[in-house]
């Protein structure tokens, strides 16, 4: 296992040397890929020395010098945090997000802050104020979004692991497009404290890695109850053990569902690769059955109505007085309106305006309240499935990565690419994406879902697929 071997390597070799190799790689290629908005080289070098000392003394933390990049909507104390927007171009975070804190405690080296779609409003990594991220597998193509820089930094070997955030696929989509592992934890498993809001009831931070082991390792570090996030829950943090102790028998006892709705409109080549993997799991003894999720076709409107509403509320805080870009004006009304007009990008404005509209007294019942009732129906659907099955399997994305610039002008086309990922967020369950093949050099991702707080099942499924793909 790649990440496990790497940690063993670090214990016997030099953490500083390992970091330097990453820095070299970044210097060589990040001008083109644009995975980072802010680098943290000096601090990283400093902590690499400290961690090396700890390793020599044998008291290093779980991450023992692995190089980690963090999406730029998560706070790292005294480091710039832009959320990919002009709004926060010069904002220095005064505190650490809970996940940042935990990574530091376990001796991860924070190498920098990753590029992303502006305020996570995008599905292909091209709407950042700091320019698009490019797909390391082919720089003419989008890397997926919104955690574009996180996925790209792992794919391009700029970092060993990364933290992104997933509101409706923002980890799984770029993981799929860049050919790395991405994991969206169950809602409440990982603290959101320090994660800039997009849609609060849907999102949370999650890990990127090159393998299941890396995902489980990071999940052990970042999960758990946090007094600074009321939705978090207790867990036993034994994910790495689950992966390390994986046995063939684990998959034999699994009941895996696939829904035909998850294959409708999916690119034929992607469909075939995923079906092939499903076949391999079956040959290993898993019970595979077809189920129906008839409400999936409503998930995009439900999801976006919730997103618009919560996002417009969350974005109210940006008035330019306390922090962020400020344009000024004659009075408090004009100053705020000017500030917001001149600093927010088109998709951000679109969502703020639509969200304001659908939560206004006279339109709220028609849109916001209705979406919440429909959301409940989606949750009930998944509950039904997971009463009988351990996992739900399918592709992560309906298409291969597209060329940069192709979809940015049509919001509905952009929204539609999230069709396979948003349901997990609506239901609050966990889901993953991992590379299972490629088409014309572009990666294809397989998505697994498991019930809320059934992360161990999901990791077993990922490990089984990972093993099935070895030697490909």
């Amino acid at each position, binding site marked *: 296992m790649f990440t496990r071997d790497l940690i063993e390597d670090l214990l016997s070799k030099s953490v500083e040397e390992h970091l330097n190799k990453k820095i070299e790689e970044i210097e060589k290629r990040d001008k083109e890929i644009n995975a980072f908005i802010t680098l943290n080289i000096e601090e990283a070098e400093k902590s690499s020395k400290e961690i090396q000392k700890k390793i020599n003394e044998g008291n290093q933390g779980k991450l023992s010098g692995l190089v980690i990049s963090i999406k730029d909507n998560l706070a790292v104390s005294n480091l710039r945090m832009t959320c990919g927007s002009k709004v926060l171009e010069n904002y220095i975070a005064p505190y650490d997000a809970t996940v940042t804190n935990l990574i530091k405690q376990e001796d991860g080296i924070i190498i920098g802050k990753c590029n992303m779609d502006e305020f996570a409003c995008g599905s292909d990594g091209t709407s950042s104020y700091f320019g698009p991220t490019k797909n390391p597998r082919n720089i003419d193509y989008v890397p997926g979004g919104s955690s574009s820089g996180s996925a790209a930094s792992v794919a391009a070997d700029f970092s060993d692991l990364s933290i992104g955030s997933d509101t409706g696929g923002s980890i799984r989509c770029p993981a799929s497009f860049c050919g790395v592992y991405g994991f969206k934890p169950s809602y409440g498993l990982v603290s959101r404290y320090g994660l800039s809001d997009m849609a609060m009831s849907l999102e949370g931070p999650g890990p990127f890695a090159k393998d299941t082991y890396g995902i489980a390792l990071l999940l052990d570090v970042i999960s758990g109850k946090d007094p600074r996030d009321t939705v978090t829950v207790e867990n036993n943090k034994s994910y790495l053990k689950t992966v390390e102790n994986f046995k063939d028998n684990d998959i034999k006892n699994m009941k895996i569902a696939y829904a035909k709705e998850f294959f409708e409109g999916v690119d034929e080549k992607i469909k075939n690769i995923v079906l092939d993997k499903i076949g391999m799991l079956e040959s290993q003894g898993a019970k595979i059955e077809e189920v129906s999720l008839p409400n999936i076709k409503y998930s995009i*409107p439900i999801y976006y109505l919730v997103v618009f509403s919560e996002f417009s509320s969350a974005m109210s805080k940006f008035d330019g007085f306390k922090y962020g870009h400020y344009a000024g004006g004659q009075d408090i009304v004009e100053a705020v309106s000017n500030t917001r007009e001149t600093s927010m990008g088109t998709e951000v404005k679109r969502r703020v305006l639509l969200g304001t509209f659908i939560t206004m007294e006279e339109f709220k019942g028609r849109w916001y309240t209705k979406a919440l009732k429909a959301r409940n129906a989606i949750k009930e659907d998944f509950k039904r499935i997971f009463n009988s099955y351990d996992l739900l399997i399918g592709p992560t994305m309906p298409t291969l990565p597209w060329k940069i610039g192709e979809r940015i002008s049509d919001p509905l086309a952009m929204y539609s690419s999230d069709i396979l990922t948003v349901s997990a967020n609506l239901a609050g369950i966990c889901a993953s994406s991992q590379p299972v093949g490629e088409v014309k050099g572009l990666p294809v991702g397989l998505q697994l879902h498991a019930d809320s707080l059934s992360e161990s099942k999901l990791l077993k499924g990922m490990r089984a697929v990972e093993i099935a793909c070895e030697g490909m």
Partner: protein
Amino acid sequence: MVETIINDRVIERVSEIARLKLSDKEKEKFREEFERILEEFSIIDEIKVGEKELYYVVENVNVLRKDSKPKPFNNINSIKTNFNKIEDDFIVVPRNL
């Protein structure tokens, strides 16, 4: 069908409430887009729903915090560094006479 007609007056009001100034061109562009988006989104009317509105996907309730001795934040200066304009430790904003 979208029974909510989004006219110029509505867009104007939304832009005021959201404190987001829009040019005439933007107003027209967004108005047209919003009608198209909501038209497409109105398929949610087909879905059979109950009365329950799902606000929270977790079961947590009553997450209260014990009151205890205050713990002052240790990096207040970094908060102040981000103030747009500061005078005697106050944030300076336009007056409202």
